Structures are given as structure tokens and as C-alpha cells.
């Protein structure tokens, strides 16, 4: 119990951040027209590629001779970057169609 209360008090700001972000995420998209479900999912998917930051930090702090970590980390960066670049590009393509429709 003492350990838990110590953990909470030292990480209080983090816990606030998490709680507020979860609530924000719920509230952000509470009302979405069906036509936007797919683009929104795709856009959110691209944002989840933020995991790439972890791979970048991993490689930067890794030993330059540790080829195992470097190779796997680079693979991680590549995969996450496909998610990011492809995700935003595909979302843009979907939304481009909507724009054209508006003009017509």
C-alpha cells in the first residue's frame, strides 16, 4: 500500500496526463457521420505510428556495435514509418474524393 501511494505521488502529473487524455480521446469524436468512419480510422491509425519515436530513441541510445539492436530497431523504424507515411497519404486520398464531390 505504501509503495502504491508513493508511486502515485511521484507520478501524479503523468497520471493526470493519462486520465485527461483518455477523456479527451472519448470526447473528441463523440459525433461522427458514418461517411467519415473509415477516413477517421485511417487517420487515427497513422497517428498510432507515433511508436516510431520509441524506435528512434532506442537506436540513438544503442551501442554502435550492437548490431542486433540496431538492425531490429531500424526494422521497427521502417515498419512504423510505413504506417505513418502510408497512413496519412491513404487518408488524404480518401478525403480528396470527398472534396471533389463537394465541388461537383
Amino acid at each position: 500500500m505504501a509503495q502504491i501511494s508513493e508511486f502515485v505521488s511521484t507520478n501524479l502529473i503523468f497520471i493526470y496526463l493519462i486520465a485527461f487524455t483518455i477523456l479527451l480521446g472519448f470526447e473528441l469524436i463523440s459525433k461522427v457521420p458514418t461517411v467519415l468512419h473509415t477516413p477517421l480510422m485511417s487517420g487515427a491509425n497513422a497517428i498510432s505510428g507515433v511508436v516510431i519515436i520509441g524506435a528512434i530513441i532506442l537506436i540513438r541510445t544503442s551501442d554502435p556495435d550492437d548490431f542486433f539492436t540496431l538492425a531490429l530497431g531500424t526494422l521497427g523504424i521502417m515498419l512504423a514509418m510505413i504506417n505513418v507515411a502510408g497512413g496519412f497519404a491513404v487518408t488524404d486520398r480518401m478525403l480528396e474524393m470527398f472534396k471533389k464531390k463537394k465541388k461537383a
Partner: protein
Amino acid sequence: MYKTLLDIGFMMAAIAFIIGLRRLSAPATARIGNIVAGVGMLLAIAIAIVYPLGNGTSNNYIWIVVGIALGSVIGWIAAKKVQMTAMPEMVSIFNGLGGACAVILGLLEMIKTSADNKAAIGISIFTLLVGAVSFTGSILAYLKLAGKVQDKHVILPGHSYINIVFLIASIGLGIFYVLHPSMPLLIVFSILSLVYGISFVAPIGGADMPVVISLLNSLTGISAATAGFIYGNQIMIVGGILVGASGTILTVLMCNAMNRSLINVIIGGFGSAGSSSASNDEGKIAKEISSYDAAVMMNYSGSVMIVPGYGLAVAQAQKICKEIDDLLSENGVEVNYAIHPVAGRMPGHMNVLLAEADVPYSKLKDLDEANAMLPSTDVVIIVGANDVVNPSALDDPGSPVYGMPVLNVWKAKNVIVLKRSMSPGYAGIQNPLFFYENNRMYFGDAKDSLSKLVTEVKALN
């Protein structure tokens, strides 16, 4: 000072994600929203590359540059080349790759972290588990959507119980690993997590796939957030949790659009459940119609409602569909499109395809609008749709689609179904509509059939 600026930059990126998601959820601002989020991501990546990590960091920039360059090129080309019809599959693959990155991070961190740091190991193993389920689950979802894997080949009897066993085993083994880390156990755990992902998606029927992809998407977000804890990086935490939370809401919204509960979807069985009612239709014969008769029926009617489905998307028939629309409109026939929320493979999919063919927005009617118009519609043309016009959803509690809102096409005066054969739809259920008195079948590939109709209508004028 320098570091403070970079920290503020990270914060700006997080704000960009929030604004981006907000704008993505309204039609008028969606495109800008996507760009804002994308710029936020670029900013975050740039800062992560230059952020001071203390003295003696080797940086290893060459590896980072290679990874980013390869990933950007592959992602960009894939996104540009993919057919509009294959978008859902693409999103699923992208999502899986993000999950795979989380798996790699979780693995490497567990190898590096000392066995005494229980909190760090716990977080890493959670990241690994969630990332792995998202990874292999998304890949299987892709294979199912692309038609490369059939539901019946991957569903085992009592599959939902198997999944519960997997869940308990993963959590149990994870806790055991935190207490007694060892390399062989790590390998076993990784394999277990990857298999669990496949097993998780396996029993979920084709029609529910969009919901699952959305769910897996929020899992990737959660794994990104927990990976953020490992590195103490706020932008990963914020970005990941945002996707996790909004993805969960989106998943629920999608379930609501199909009038299904999330639990129902996860337990699965949509389309594989008993088709008790199918036998009732045996012996009945669906009536066919010739292309000439169909053309006459449409051309001399007052109003036509086109119901596009996945068959239209697969056959790339949206442009010919628009051609018929133009021909009929010239003759004073009122042409509209009834778009079921899950027409195609994903919500909104059909709108995108029709917009590509320059069908005006005002002609696309949503479920409620269309159902209000159908009783006064002369001819309904169903192009490659099936489950979304299945009357069993309203009157047959034994049907797997029972309860799903459908387009009440049978209320129109005449219905023509363009379909390749009498085989059941994507969900694997027979459709009694085909045997209704006011229904006619026109067999053939959606594109060929529509082309023939175009020729016939032209000949009439």
C-alpha cells in the same frame, strides 16, 4: 533553453494530433485535419531525432535515416497505388506494421532491462502482448478482407473459449515472466502473443471486419502509449492514448451503425451461425429478367434507386453506374443512390467510390432517407449488394443478420438484383428477397450487366 524549445515542440505536436482528430470528425474540415495531424507527426519525428539524450549517445543516425527513408518510400507508394476498393485492407496492414514496431520495442527493452526493474519489465511485456495481437490480428484481417482466407477455414469449434484460454494464458505467463524473466520464456511468450492475435480475429465474420480493424487500431494506440512509458516520452503517451480512446469510441460507433454489440462482434459467428431459415426457401425459384426488360422498366419509370454493394466495388463498376444514371436522368427519371452504413466493406467506403465517379453528393441517400423514399420508388437496382437488403434482418430471429438495420427495398414497386449467382452474400446467408414477388434477378458480373443495361437504354432512345 534548446531543450525547452524542443519540449514545447513535442507539446505542439501533441496539440496538432488533438486538433487533427477533431477536424477529421467533421466532413468540411476532415482533409485539413489529416494534414494538421501529419505535420504534427513530422514535427515529433524531427524533434525525436535531434532531442538531446545526454552525453555519450552514439546517435547512429545512418540507421535511423535508412529506416525512415525505406519506410516513407514503401508507405507512400503503397498508399498511392492501392485501388480505392482495397483501402480497408491497406489500413489494416498499416495498422499491423505499427503493432509490429511495438513488438520489436517491447522485445528489445525486455532483453536490455535488468530483471530487478519489475515495473519496466511489466510495461514492456504489456507492450509486446498488445502490439503482437494488433500485428498478427491486422494481418489476418487483411487476408480475410482480401478474400485470401475464408472464415470457415480458420474458425475452430468453441473458438471463443479458445480465445479466453489464450487471454488467461498470456496474462498468466506475462506475470510469471515479470517475476522470473528468462530468455526461453520470453520466446514462448512472444510466440503465444502472436498466435493469440490470429486466434482473436479468426472467429470474427467478414461483415464485422471494419469493427475489428478499428479495435485493433486502438490496440496499436495503447501499445504506442505503453511504449511511451518505457522511454518516458510524452508525445508517444498522448498520441497513443488519443488513438486508443478515440479508436474505442469509433469502434462502438461502428457497432451502433450495424446495430450490434461489441461483445457480439468479438465472440463472432456472424455468418457462420446457424442458417436455420435457409431451408425455407428451398424449392422456390427466383425469377430472372432480360436486360431489355430491365432497361424498359427503368427507362419508363419515374424514379430509380440504385443500391450499390461490394460487388460494384469489386467490378470497378462505379463509372458505368454513373453512365446509367446520366442516361436515365436525361429522360427525366429521378435517380438516387441508397447507401447502407456498411455498404462495401467499411462505413463510408461506397461514398468514396461513387464520389470518384462524380456522382453528386445530393444523390447519395443514407439509410433513413432511403427507407423513407423506397415505398414511392418505382425501380430499385441492387448492384452487388446482398446482406444489407436482406429482409430476414427484420422478420427472422433465427437469421444471423437479425436486428441489423437494412434497406427496405422490397417496399418499392420493382426490384432488380444484379448478381453473379444465387450464392449467399459475404456474410454467408441466403437472402429471401430473391424469391419475392416483385423481385427479378439479372445474373452476371456487375460491370458487364450494367454495360448491357447502358446499351439497352441507349437503344430505347
